[in-house]
Structures are given as structure tokens and as C-alpha cells.
């Protein structure tokens, strides 16, 4: 009787399974290469992000003004100071107001401009460049430009408004507490919308022309096409843009520092401007407060993180609904 052929590779064997050590598993899964490729960014993450965070975190219970022999442990004092620091909590409120107003204007404006410039009309590339240009200007330069525009006595805006008869007395754009926030929002929307517009334009180019053609055949008008096709198909991009816009708005302070330095009074004193001035002993602060500033940085990071989490939850719920 002929012996049944058994493929030696498939045949059961009494040999114990080859021991696979960790080293081999790492090699087989390409782990070494991955870690090698990741290592530069990991080093930078540790050096530029994690280490500074730990460095500053250790001072949250200290009174420290940056001078080495002035470090002193103050226990819970920074925390109790923070809880009763009306100026800090006021700055948190100002930050929410600023972020909300900025988002209300910047996202729709960026979206509308993206839709208009995506129509492949003559000159749309030129305007795309023009609207994007403020994004490449440094924030402090933006702030300086707008100090000339918003100056009360000799400002460009008041000059125009007066010449066309809209105002008789100059508006105190930067000195009147009731209008200064509008000035700050105008500047930040001008400086930022071109960036978000570009994201939207990029998102729109990925929507197939066939979809639009079908909608045209079905008789959809422009508004219907926008709400039924463009907007839903832009949803993933919109989600990312919104997230960037929210975190960006909460962290803005550079241009505000130049334009109003948080004033008049504390009317535009956003959270991170307050913290910056504390840590660097600038603005109206008599001395550097690195310890207290470190604690406020942590609280501010928690606030921004909480807002981002809430946004992500809302966005997820909306996904489920849609």
C-alpha cells in the first residue's frame, strides 16, 4: 500500500513550536523601522513639549519670579489666589465671548468665500491669493496695521465713516469699552478667514463633478445644491476646520496684545494674554509670576481641552443624526 503523501510543510510535527522572542516579533512586525522613523519626532515632542510642560508644572505650588534664589514653596496659595482672581475669571469670560463672536463670523465668511471662489470665475485665483494674504502676515504686524485703521482721532476707518456721513463724531474703536470687542473681532476675522477658506476650497475640489451634474439634471437650484450636496459632502472638512478654529480662537492673544493690550481696562484681556503678562512680567505686572502663571496655564489648558472634548462629542452626535 502506497504511503499517502503528506506535504512535509503541513504535516503535524512533534517538534515544539519555534520560540518567538520579543526581538523577533518586533523585527517581523517592522517595529524597529517604525520606532526609528518615529524617533526624531518623539525626541522633539519630549524636548519641546513634554519637558517644558513638566518644567513649568513643578512651579504651580511655588512663588517664583524667575530669579533662582527667589523660589519658595507656598502650598495652596496660588490655588486660592486663582479661585478669587476676578481678573483671571474675567479674562476667561472675555475669551469665550471673543471665541464665540469670532467663530460666528469667520466660519460662514470663509465658507461663503470658498463657494464663490470655487465657481471658476475669472480672477478667482487672484482673489484666493488676496484673501489668503493676511494669513501670512505676522499677528503682531496685523495688530499694528489695525491700530492705524481704528485710531479715534486720525484713524482711517473713522475718516471713511465721517466722509460718507455715517458718523459725526469719531468712534473710540480702541478706547470705548462698548465697541472695542467689535474692533478686535474685525481684525481677527480679517487675519484668519483666508486660511479656513483655503481648507474649504480644497475640500470642495474633492467633491465629484458628477454629483453636481446629477443635481442639475434633477433641477436643483444653487441654494439646494449648497445645502443638499456641498455642505454634507464638506462635513469632514468642516469638522476639522471648526476644531482648528475653536482651539485657535481660544489661544489667540498676540494681535490683541498689540492692538489693545487687553484694554481698555480689561475689556479685551483674553486668558492667554493675561497669562503671558504674568509669566513674563510685562504689561501692567510689576514682577514675573512664573509659579502663578504656570497654574493658570494649566487651568487654561484644561478649559481649552474641555471645550474641544465637548465639541467632539457634539460633532459625533451630529454624525449619528445625519
Amino acid at each position, binding site marked *: 500500500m502506497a504511503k499517502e503523501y503528506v506535504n512535509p510543510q503541513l504535516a503535524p510535527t512533534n517538534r515544539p513550536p519555534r520560540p518567538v522572542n520579543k526581538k523577533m516579533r518586533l523585527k517581523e512586525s517592522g517595529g524597529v523601522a517604525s520606532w526609528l522613523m518615529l524617533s526624531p519626532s518623539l525626541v522633539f515632542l519630549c524636548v519641546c513639549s513634554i519637558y517644558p510642560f513638566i518644567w513649568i508644572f513643578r512651579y504651580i505650588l511655588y512663588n517664583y519670579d524667575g530669579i533662582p534664589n527667589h523660589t519658595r514653596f507656598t502650598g495652596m496659595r496660588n490655588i486660592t489666589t486663582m479661585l478669587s482672581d476676578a481678573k483671571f475669571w474675567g479674562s476667561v469670560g472675555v475669551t469665550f465671548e471673543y471665541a464665540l463672536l469670532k467663530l460666528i463670523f469667520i466660519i460662514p465668511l470663509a465658507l461663503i468665500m470658498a463657494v464663490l471662489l470655487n465657481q471658476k470665475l475669472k480672477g478667482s485665483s487672484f482673489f484666493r491669493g488676496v484673501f489668503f494674504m493676511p494669513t501670512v502676515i505676522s499677528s503682531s504686524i496685523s495688530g499694528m496695521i489695525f491700530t492705524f485703521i481704528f*485710531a479715534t*482721532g486720525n484713524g482711517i476707518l473713522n475718516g471713511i465713516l465721517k466722509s460718507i456721513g455715517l458718523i459725526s463724531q469719531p468712534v473710540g474703536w480702541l478706547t470705548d469699552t462698548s465697541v472695542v470687542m467689535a474692533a478686535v473681532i474685525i481684525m481677527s476675522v480679517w487675519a484668519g478667514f483666508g486660511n479656513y477658506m483655503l481648507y474649504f476650497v480644497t475640500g470642495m475640489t474633492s467633491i465629484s463633478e458628477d454629483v453636481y451634474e446629477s443635481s442639475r439634471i434633477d433641477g436643483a437650484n444653487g441654494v439646494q445644491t449648497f445645502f443638499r450636496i456641498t455642505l454634507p459632502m464638506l462635513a469632514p472638512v468642516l469638522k476639522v476646520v471648526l476644531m482648528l478654529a475653536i482651539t485657535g480662537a481660544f489661544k489667540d492673544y498676540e494681535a490683541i496684545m498689540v492692538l489693545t493690550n487687553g484694554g481698555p*481696562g480689561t475689556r479685551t484681556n483674553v486668558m492667554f494674554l493675561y497669562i503671558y503678562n504674568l509669566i513674563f512680567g510685562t504689561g*501692567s505686572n510689576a514682577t514675573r509670576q512664573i509659579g502663578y502663571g504656570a497654574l493658570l496655564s494649566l487651568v487654561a489648558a484644561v478649559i481649552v481641552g474641555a471645550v474641544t472634548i465637548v465639541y467632539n462629542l457634539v460633532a459625533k452626535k451630529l454624525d449619528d443624526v445625519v
Partner: protein
Amino acid sequence: MRKLSMLVALVMLAVLALSAVPALADKTVITYWSNDRHDEAYMNEVINKFNAEHDDIEINMVIMTDDFENSILLAYDGGTAPDIIGQSVTLKNMVDYEAVVDLAPYIEKDEEYQKVNDPFNHKYEGLNAIGDAIYWVPSGMRSGVRIEYNKALLEASGFSGIPSSLPEYIEMAKKISEDGAANTPQTYGIGFTSSSPFERQLEMMAQVSGVFYYDYANGKFDFTGYKPFLEAGRELVAVAYPDQQGVDNMRAQFAAGSFALWGNASQEAGVFTSQFPVNDFEWGVSPVPSLDGEIKGALQTNPNKGYLMMSSCKNRDAAWEVIRYLQSEDVLKGYMEGGYDLPITSYIDSIIDKSKMGRMADFSLLDYESVYPAVPTINLIGDDYRTVLWNAIMGYAEIDDAIADLNTRYNQAYDEDVSLGFVQRLVIADYDPLHPSAGTVTWETK
């Protein structure tokens, strides 16, 4: 072969030519950071002269007008600090940081420097010296604040000069603003800058009225006396030029005739003759008014234009050579005659031609101007007093609340710093507001 020889010869010539270059590179470069812009042209001139005359040392001056102290400390931490810095820093912080060098050993050996700068008679505890250590020596003096005024606008409203009392001053500002409403463009009685506005007029009016934020006699902070000046400030702001822009913008507005009254110290002599020259009207200079017209306190004046040597300086002898040059007779004579500062030593005062000082002569020291003893540097959380008091003037805070807040925060921070041994309590039991530096200084540990 001939071509090759030519090529070799050319290469050799090039090598020889290049070998001459290291003579320049061998110079010791001493970097000096200044935060004075008003004297830039003159300083460049004397530095260029020094560099041309010296084969061994080269001065590299960098002007940094913003965030001066922070920039220095950040550079010091990063190992890129300059060798010499201007004196506009908090001395105690720099000394505690061990960032500056005691210049006394250099000064003691330098008789010419002593003759010109009289350093041992211009030691101000906490300001340029701590104990026996001298960290900088003033080259000159900035006057206390004066009122610079537009004579044409004053005369148009029926005034010939600045009154001696604050209520009259307010009435004058109101009248000029009222009259200016009819002008095109509209003109105003007074203007304030956004940059430390309280310091530039009202704080100095308080000083000459005998009000100061540090109670030297009892060794504590006391802001209570500022109340009438804050109330006066509210009246002035109500009729002021509607913007409070940066100091240079407001200087430009004054020079353009937009408002009549401006407050600042002797640096304005140069500002209104060269930086923003006033050409269309005559401008006058007057002492600041007091609360009731009577002088009850000294007006603060500031010794200035000093040079500190950083402890990170690797060529200290060369750095000292630069300092002694910048404070030499020739350089200081030109500096004072150029109208950049007022002389602080009797020696410099005796050798300068005062007719060359231009409008600086209008800022000559008053008999009630004096250097105040340096108030202890404390580790304060939150806004400084000038910001809080100006916010109260602008109506962003109640006056009584602002004063109570300052009294509490400043004294809490002071008490804590004293208890931890970071500062000592400065007490001058026989303090006289008209002669603030004449009293007996004691330092207490409680």
C-alpha cells in the same frame, strides 16, 4: 607652464590678501544693549569714532526699546547676553540673578573716571548701588516731569502760562477743549498716552503735593493720598484728546497741534526739536501744578545713562575700557551740549557750554527736585499701582476700591517678602517729603 605659474602666483597673492583680514577679526567685540533711542545718532557717532581709533576693541551697540529687562535676562539664560547694558533695569533683580558685576574695583583704580563722574558721591542705595558695591554710575540726569504746552492754543483761550494749582489746570484744559470744538480739525486741552499715563502727569502732581505711594516714615505702602488726583484725572480725561495711543504717536499729535498740554520729562527737549520737530507754533515748558498751588514734596528726578557690566562678559577689562570711554569727559561734554541729558556732576556742569544745550535748558533742575530713595522691590501678584490707578481714572474701577486693593496687595506682598528675608523693610523715621534723600535710612527685618 607659464599659465600655471601665473595661476600659482595669483593664488599666493589671494592667500596673502586674505591673511590680512584676521587683523579685523582679532578685535574683541563688546556688545552694548541700550534702550535709549533719542540719543542714537550721537551714540553712533562716538562709537564709530572709538571703533576707528581702536585696533583691539570694537563696540557693537544694539538698541532695544521694548521689554528691555526681560530680553536681557532671557539672553543671559541662553548664554547670548551682551557685555554691557543700559541702566533701565531693576537693580535688585539683576543682582539677585548674579547677572551683573560690581564696578567698584575698576572705579577705585581709575582716577580720571572718578574726576569726571564723581561716582562715590552719586551712590543711590537700591538704584545704582547695594552696600559697597556700585553697579552703575550715572552720566547725567533726567529732569522730573514738566508740562509742555502749545502757546498758540493757550493764548487763543486767554491763557498765558500754566497755573500752579490742579483745579486751575483742569479749568484751563476744559476751556481749551471747549474752544477747540470749533476748530478744524478739532483741538483739545490735554492729551494722554497709553504708555504709563498716570506717571507722566498726575503722579508727579501728587509728588509735589507731598503724596507718595511709599510711606517712608512707617515703612509701608500707602496709596490713600492719591484719591483727589484720581478724581481730578477723571475730569481731565473727559475733555482730553479722544485717543490714548503709544507715546510717540501722542508726541506726534502734540507736535501737530492736536492738543495743548502734554506731560513728560527732559527727553522731550530732543523729541520736539528733532524727532517730532514743532514748527507751526511755539511751545513752552512749565513745572507741574500741585493740588493747592503749594509745593509740599520733592519732584522725582532720575539719575540715568549708566552702564552695567554683565557677569557673563568674557572680556571684562575691555568692557571697562568701553564704559570709561562712554563716560569720558569728551563724550559726556558732547552728550550734555547735544541736549540729551542734564549734567549730574559739578565737573561736567562746569565744562559744558550751556548755550549749546538748546531747549534742554528749559528743563534745568528745580530747587525742589530730588532723587527718592529706591522703594524695595517686592514680588507682587497682579497689576502695578500705575495701571490700577489709571483704570480708576478711566472709570473701569471705583476709586476707593482701587486704593483699597493696592494697599492690601502691596503690603501683603511686602510683609511676606520681609518675613522670608528676600527684602528688608525700608524706614526713614525722620523722612521729609521735600528732602526725601536727606533722612536716616534704616533697614528692618520685620
